[in-house]
Every structure is written in structure tokens, then in C-alpha cells.
């Protein structure tokens, strides 16, 4: 028999339960299993009613960010062998729960949409490609790695505390576009990020950077935006640190 690991999973059906409860499962695991494999095991062998999101199963689609043993991670990119059992698996804390491990991400997607996350290409549009040097690409490339998993938002102490803040992911989106040599929409975006709940709400806790499964230096990018806001006269006060 394969070794068993105890999973303690948040269960919650809003139509039936007053509040979330933890249910314990014995999961048989293989050496290189991911947390997601454990959840699949529960669903297939022990209780088909447990609900969680997942799709790609290798860390590229952003579906399965969960709080695992107290830390936000992608279940499909976290190996069981790297964690201390028993496993505590909970939904992303800063969002309303729809059911079990599934949260309502409406506010997350709304926040990222506020920064106008689309390229506004300058006229004239060339017949072939815009020319862009490798260095110009590097200036914004990191932000394009974001998979909109919402890990950073859930990990952010400012968000957790309830201070109005557009959130790290939205600032990363803004960073990606204002630094793209093809884009002419920077001003509108920076205005939005200059608001009281914009980039300035970040207090440099670095929790976003720690949890980002894509290795984006989130805090650094936020501080670059803060510096642009200063330099462009969008906000007043001392230069941002970091």
C-alpha cells in the first residue's frame, strides 16, 4: 500500500452549511505527487462532491491557487514531499467562498480591468511588425508572465487589513503596458494607479513577491510604478523607496 497523508480540506455549501468546516481525508500518495493529485484522489475515490478549480495541472492557467499549510500556492505546482503533513487546504482567504475551495474572483478581475489592461498601439500602425529591440522587450516582459491567479492579492497584508487597494496584480498589469514601447495609453493608466487606492497603497511587505508562482518581482515592479508616478508628477511627496 502506498503511504497515506492526511488532508484537511475546507468544505462549505452555502445552501446547506452555516459556516465552513474542515473535513479530514486519508490520501494515498506516490513519490512525486502534487497537492492537486491529492485533491483529485479525494474526488475520485473518497468524496466526489468536493469542489475545487483546476485545468492545466502544470502551473500555467492560474486556476488552483489555494492556501496550503497557511501559504498561498498553486496546488498543481506544489509537491507533497515538500510539505509537512497533515495538509491543511483552504480557499483564498480574501475572497467570498462560493463552495468548498472555490472563491468568487469577480472583484479580482474587476480590479485588473480598471488599469485598462490592453495595448493601445500608437498610430500609424505599420504594415509589418512594430520594431522593438530585445532591450525594449525586457523592459516589460516580466509582467507578461502573470497568470492572474490572485495569489498575490490574498497574500497582501494591506488587502487583508481591508485598506482600499487595487492590489498587486493590477499594478503588475499596469506596469506591463506602461513600459511597452508600442503603447500610447500610459497616461490614463498612471492616473488610475495614482489614486488613493492605487500603487501608493502598497507598504512594501513583499508578501506578493514571496508567493507569486511565476517568480515575478511584484514589489519591485510596484515600486517602479511608484517612481514613475513621482517622476511624472502624478503624485506628490517623497520618492518611493525600494
Amino acid at each position, binding site marked *: 500500500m502506498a503511504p497515506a497523508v492526511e488532508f484537511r480540506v475546507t468544505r462549505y455549501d452555502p445552501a446547506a452549511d452555516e459556516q465552513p468546516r474542515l473535513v479530514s481525508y486519508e490520501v494515498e500518495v506516490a513519490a*512525486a505527487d502534487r497537492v492537486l493529485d491529492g485533491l483529485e484522489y479525494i474526488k475520485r475515490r473518497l468524496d466526489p462532491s468536493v469542489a475545487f478549480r*483546476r485545468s492545466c495541472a*502544470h502551473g500555467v492557467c492560474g486556476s488552483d491557487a489555494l492556501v496550503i499549510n497557511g501559504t498561498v500556492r498553486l496546488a498543481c*505546482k506544489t509537491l507533497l514531499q515538500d510539505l509537512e503533513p497533515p495538509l491543511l487546504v483552504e480557499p483564498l482567504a480574501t475572497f467570498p467562498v462560493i463552495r468548498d475551495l472555490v472563491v468568487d474572483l469577480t472583484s479580482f478581475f474587476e480590479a485588473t*480591468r480598471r488599469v485598462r489592461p490592453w495595448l493601445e498601439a500608437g498610430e500609424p500602425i505599420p504594415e509589418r*511588425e512594430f520594431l522593438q529591440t530585445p532591450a525594449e*522587450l525586457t523592459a516589460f516582459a516580466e509582467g507578461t508572465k502573470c497568470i*492572474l491567479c490572485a495569489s498575490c492579492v490574498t497574500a497582501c497584508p494591506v488587502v487583508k487589513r481591508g485598506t482600499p487597494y487595487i492590489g498587486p496584480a493590477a499594478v503588475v498589469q499596469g506596469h506591463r*503596458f506602461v513600459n511597452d514601447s508600442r503603447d500610447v495609453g500610459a497616461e490614463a493608466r498612471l492616473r488610475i494607479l495614482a489614486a488613493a487606492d492605487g500603487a501608493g497603497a502598497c507598504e512594501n511587505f513583499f508578501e506578493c513577491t514571496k508567493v507569486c508562482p511565476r517568480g515575478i518581482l511584484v514589489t519591485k515592479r510596484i515600486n517602479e510604478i511608484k517612481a514613475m508616478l513621482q517622476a511624472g508628477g502624478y503624485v506628490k511627496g517623497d520618492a518611493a523607496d525600494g
Partner: protein
Amino acid sequence: MTFARHDYDAVIVGAGGAGLFAALELGRAGAKAAVLSKLYAVRSHTGAAQGGICAALGNREPDKPLWHMFDTVKGGDYLVDQDAAEIMCEEAPGVVFDLEHMGVPFNRTDDGKIDQRPFGGHTRNFGEAPVRRACYAADRTGAMILHTLYQQCLRAGVEFYDEFFVTDLAFAGETVAGVVAHDVRAGELHSFRAPAVALATGGWGRLFRVTSNAYANTGDGAALALRAGIPLQDMEFYQFHPTGLHGLGILVSEAARGEGGILRNDAGERFMERYAPRLLDLAPRDMVSRAVYQELQTGRGLGGADYVGLDLTHLDAEVLDKKIPEITDFARIYLGVEPKEEMIPVAPTAHYAMGGVPTTVDGEVTRDEEATVVPGLYAAGEVACVSVHGANRLGTNSLLDILVFGRRVGRAIAEFVRGGKGPAWPAEALEGRREKVARWRDTAGGPAVAELRADMQEAMEAGVSVYRTAESTAAAREAVGGLLTAYGDVGVGDAAAAFSTELLEAFEVGNLLALAYVTAASAHRRTESRGAHSREDFAARDDARWLNHTLCYLRDGELEFRAKPVTITRFEPKPREY
């Protein structure tokens, strides 16, 4: 009982590259379109595409759409419809420039142009040597295209219904009237009335146990068409990619070989020298997968195990870090292998459906060998079979296919819906689905969804894998047929309405079973070897008898086959050597 009802000019089912480009075109044309997707758009599997999208831009060396077309036709073992392939290769540069103007962060040459790299089966001057044709954004090209299209759809005001699972197509007679969709979050059915519906639901790698495909890749759109009496085309041609991470199936893109990676067996031999002396590791996938399979069959896997090695150790660290950073990370995370120091253990993984819902070059779905159009129904992307890939798809041709034909479908629908509102909503469409869901939920003791899926995957892996025989395909067909019957009594072990993933899986398994049945039966019927369909008992290609497309119908449990002619315009079939 009341239901939420919606009225649109067009409903796009699926928010991958194909669906989003169609929606964007409709948005640009000012039509009222809704995109329904069982996943949030940015979770679609287009986001997993790594290696690139090809177009004869000629940025690194001379190239021509005609060479690209030849490679596509030859790569597809001459089962390609050449009119469609010509359109695709001609429109390729325009689509890539369109994407670049929308914001895709392509890697660049030093002088600022889109960089290009070699990929399997893409050659210069009709097969002379590999050519640099694949445009790429590191090894996350698909994610960049998906996000960019999504962003531009938001900008254009396209309406999204995220986490809406389409369960049925609605017809008034032969004409499309709209779709029925299950709102996953609330657990309620909705009707969407529209004169035009486009299927853009992607592939069905989940037919198999080891696959590069996401959990969501269950072929729902193809199954919807099949249930509506529309045949599926060329389902026996399913591509196995030679380099999936051992045991997991997670893809290691051909880009790794495009950048210089080499496949080796236990003796350290570059075995592709024996199978494809000219293109070596960059031969088309069907050939490389067979080569790997044969190495494994003859005990030449690494350490005698069931995988070979993908050797990247001789490449510059900078190439690994800049051009294929994600796939080298997959090897580290999931197998604990450092690609700079050791070979990556790889084996074939179920990857791509060449077959699917038959369409015209404008994405209109057709219902027979004369290509009679189903009014109002369209398909694009992996779910569709135009057919530009024939018996075997070349790498980087799928992103191209989904975008060229996604865009064409958007344009065709914009034209079509000027014609009016379409038929009234047929009330029975929704009632039937509601009763079925209620029955599933009441069923105790029926077969479990998870068991049906596991048994199906086992049968398909045993019978319809890289190599097939009359016996193996017949056994798979019988086994899956039995599971299809059992599915009639399936029980859903989840009573809650909100976000019932078990209910979704019940829908999905039904769809997979139908596709598995048609795939096994189509593979059984075709007594030749062509492209990805390799029959051990009929090892040669047989143009006299089989240079035609398979159409397979499944009506009331009965299979019916027809042959549809292949369109040949420029390139007469020749033996396929590399």
C-alpha cells in the same frame, strides 16, 4: 419554472484562441456577441502552448508561404485539403502582424523584428533543410496570444459568460437556434438564443491517461455536434507528441529540439539518425513518436525503462534561460531533473486532435460528403477539421490554424447575422436537459463518473495509441461501447447545486465516451497507415483506397461511415521521406 433567457446575434462557445479571435472580429464589426466558456477565458488551454506560431515572415532567412503550404501538406501525409492549407499559409503573416499590433510580446531579433526559430517539419525550398519559421514569445507563446486577445476583447466590449458550461445545441429543424448552458456557479440552466453559434471548444486529450492536455480538454463541442447528427471527420488521426515528461505527460515543446536539443537512447545514440537522416530530431511528430516507441519496444529506453532522454546539456545556459525557461522549469519542479546537467526523461504523450467537426474554409459546419452546410453553425480551432492538418499536424501550425480560422469565422458570422434574427427558441431544448440532470442527481448506485473515465482511458491507451491493429481497435471499440451503455445510468454523487464539479464531469465523461467510441471505430475501419494513424497490420499508405476523409456519424447508438474527397490543388501525393 422560469429560466434566464438571453438573445444575441452570435454565441461563441469557448474562449481559447479560436473563440476569442472570432469574438473580437464580431466586436469590431459591431455585432452583439456573447462568449460562453466553462473556464475563465485566460484559463483556456491555448495558454499552455509553448513553442510558437509559424508564418513565412522571412525575418531570419528567406521563406515563402508556398514552402509552408508544401510542408503542411506533406506533414499531413497528403490528407490535407490544399485549398484550406493555402489560405492558412497565405494569411499567416497577416495574422502574426495583427497579433503583434495587439500587443503579443514576441521575442525580437537584434534589429527589432519578430525573431523566428526552427520547428519540426518546417523546411526551406520544399524539404531541403529546416527553416526558421516559428515566431515565439519565449516558451509561453500561447499564453501571450490568449491574454492579448482577451485584453483586446475587453477593450472591444465583448460580453463574457465565464464558467458557463454549454450542454446542448438548440435547433429549429435543420437551422441553429442557440445553445443551452449550465451556469456553474448558480447551478442553473440558461437559454441563449442566437442565429449563429460557433463551436471553439478545443481538443480532447483526456481520452487518454497520459496527455499534455488540461483537465478541461474533453471535446465537448465535437460531442455536441455528433449528438446533433453531424458527422466527425478523421477522428482516427490523433497526434502523440514524442516528448512528454515521463509519467506525467506534461509537454516539453519541440522548441527544445528547435533550439538544438537531441533525443538519445540508453546507449547515448542520437537514434533519429536512423529514422529521419535529413531532418533528424526535427522530423514530424508522428515519425519521432514512432521512433521513440520503437526504441522503447526494443529495450533501449534509459536504463531499460519506458522513456528516452532529451539532451539539452550541450546548449548554452542562456538559451535555456531565455528561450525555453518554462519547460526547463517543468523538468526541475516535476521530475527533480536539472536540464543543464542531465537528460530529461520523456515519452510520447497524447496531444492533438487532427480530426473534428468538418467545416468549410469559412468555418461553416458541414454535414456530409458533399459539404452541405448546417445553417448558422460554425466551428474553429482544435475542435474543427478544415482540414489543414490532414493525418498529422506540424508543430506551430495549430496556433496558426485557430487564429486564421477563428478570425475567418468571426468575419463570416458578422456577414451572416446581417440576415436577421434566426428561428424562435424551441422550448423542448431546455426541458430535456433539465430532466436529465434531475435524473442523474436522483440516481443512487449507478456507475461512478470517475470509474467510467478511468476505464475509457485504459481502453484507449491499450487499443488506439501510437500503433494500432484490427484487434486492438476492435477491443477498444467494444469496451467503450459497453461504457457508453453504462453511462445511461450514471449517478452524480453530489446533491448541491452551487459549483458542482461532479455534475460537470458527468457532462464531460459522456462527451469523451462518444468521442472515444468514434475514434476507436474510425481507427478500426481505416486499413492503412498514414500520418499519425499507424496500423501494424497495414503498414503502408494506400492512396488507391484511402486517400479520402473519414466521416463518422453516431445516431441512436449506431455508427455510420462515409468517405469524403480530399481537395488536391498543387501537390500530388508522393512518398513521405525526411
